[in-house]
């Protein structure tokens, strides 16, 4: 069994090193904020590449998220005999509070988190990051700051669209598949809609964007060992982002919704 203990010890050391490394990067990021004005052009570019270009994917996913929520809710309502006029209410709450923020963030982690890690990881193993530093340019300011900031802005931006599109998807399914009128659905939705849910969803989304950005950059910067290393770093980045998103989401739920 000593091998087993050693294994656990090694994982423990790696875990501490990873967490420490992420906080160190966070510290450097905060320091680099002083020079944020010099990264505005890069920020604009990343807002477009990371955010705007994710929009089609978010829209497609959200249509089906809304659609399946309406379908499942209708099925369960029928089963327990709940009135269908509550459909808009139930689906609206689920989408605005949980589904749109969490699923958008997960999709964003898959697309953007992976992309950022692969890009920075490739730059790392081909010495492009060393080259930046050798020219007196801070890689944190030049690469991390624009990507993290863009994610903090763009995940909430995407969630706004996700909310809207998912509700439309649910509405369409309700009309066509469940045969309730759009008035019935929308009355239920409006009745239950609270601005604070929506705002909280966006705040969550910003936190998720921050997590995806910093985790993506961290794994990119610590990539070692060629193409295989880039692949490994990308996988770790996405897995860690997704797990952190779900953990933080649960923490938010416990804080915001006192049972």
């Amino acid at each position, binding site marked *: 069994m000593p091998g087993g203990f050693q294994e656990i010890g090694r994982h423990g050391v790696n875990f501490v090193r990873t967490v420490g490394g992420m906080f160190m990067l966070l510290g450097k990021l905060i320091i680099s904020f002083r020079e944020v004005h010099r990264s505005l052009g890069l920020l604009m570019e990343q807002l477009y590449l990371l955010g705007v270009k994710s929009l089609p994917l978010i829209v497609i996913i959200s249509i089906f998220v809304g659609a399946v929520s309406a379908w499942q809710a209708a099925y369960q309502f029928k089963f327990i005999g709940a009135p269908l006029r509550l459909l808009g209410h139930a689906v609206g709450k689920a989408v605005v509070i949980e589904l749109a923020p969490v699923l958008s963030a997960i999709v964003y982690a898959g697309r953007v988190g992976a992309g950022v890690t692969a890009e920075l990881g490739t730059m790392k193993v*081909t010495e492009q990051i*060393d080259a930046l530093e050798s020219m007196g340019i801070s890689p944190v300011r030049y690469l991390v700051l624009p990507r993290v900031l863009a994610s903090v802005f763009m995940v909430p931006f995407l969630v706004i669209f996700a909310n809207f599109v998912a509700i439309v998807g649910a509405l369409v399914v309700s009309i066509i598949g469940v045969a309730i009128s759009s008035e019935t659905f929308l009355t239920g939705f409006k009745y239950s809609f609270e601005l604070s849910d929506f705002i909280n969803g966006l705040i969550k989304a910003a936190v998720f964007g921050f997590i995806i950005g910093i985790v993506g950059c961290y794994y990119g910067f610590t990539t070692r060992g060629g193409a295989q290393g880039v692949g490994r770093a990308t996988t770790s980045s996405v897995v860690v982002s997704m797990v952190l998103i779900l953990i933080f989401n649960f923490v938010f739920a416990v804080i915001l919704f006192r049972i």
Partner: protein
Amino acid sequence: MAAPLIQIEDIHKSFDSLRVLEGVSLNIERGESIVVIGQSGCGKSVLIKHLIRLLEPDSGRVIFDGEDIGEYDFMTLSKLRLRFGMLFQSAALFDSMTVEENVGLGLTETKRYKPGKIREIVNEKLELVGLTGVNHKRPAELSGGMRKRVGLARAIANSPEVLLYDEPTTGLDPITADMINKLIVDLREKLEVTSVAVTHDMKSAFEIADRIVMLYGGKIEFDGTPDEVRGTTNPVVRQFISGSASGPIQA
């Protein structure tokens, strides 16, 4: 005699359990062209990266122009790096940028020159390395030799005092390699820089060096002029320059 421009004092560097540098000390004089030779994987890149603190030693110091660069804060370190130019082993061009953007990046980001002025400097540097008409090409469209030359133009863009070359000829055909060697000698005369190169290419070392040192077993094994290298009886150096598989060095 004036103090050396760069003093490397007893540097030790390990990665986890891998001990790479185990007490390297070396003085580099102003205006000198020094070449560090050694086997692949012996720590040449690790050593040269310490000169601009891309890596930090576990113990030991690097003194540049009388100052310990390990004590520098981030801003001072950035200023120090502007006095250096580095050509990386794989050129390390930014593949999302054109040749012109690569060469001009340092000027754009760290000096507040106008775009016209930057273009002028970029063209001048590209001409110095013998490249014209490739300004708008991307690195992926260039041959290995051209990439190295772009890397070189980028390294000299800021008119540095010290040029660092990490294996400038590795991976190039002999003719292109020789062109790069000539270019290094040429640039040194034109720009009057101090240059530090690391390589395992002996032909290149003999061509560009005033002084050759050999890194072996994490330490400096030998230090002398090219003629002293040719005439040495040191078995490690002799084996390395003759490229023989039998001898004290084991692959």
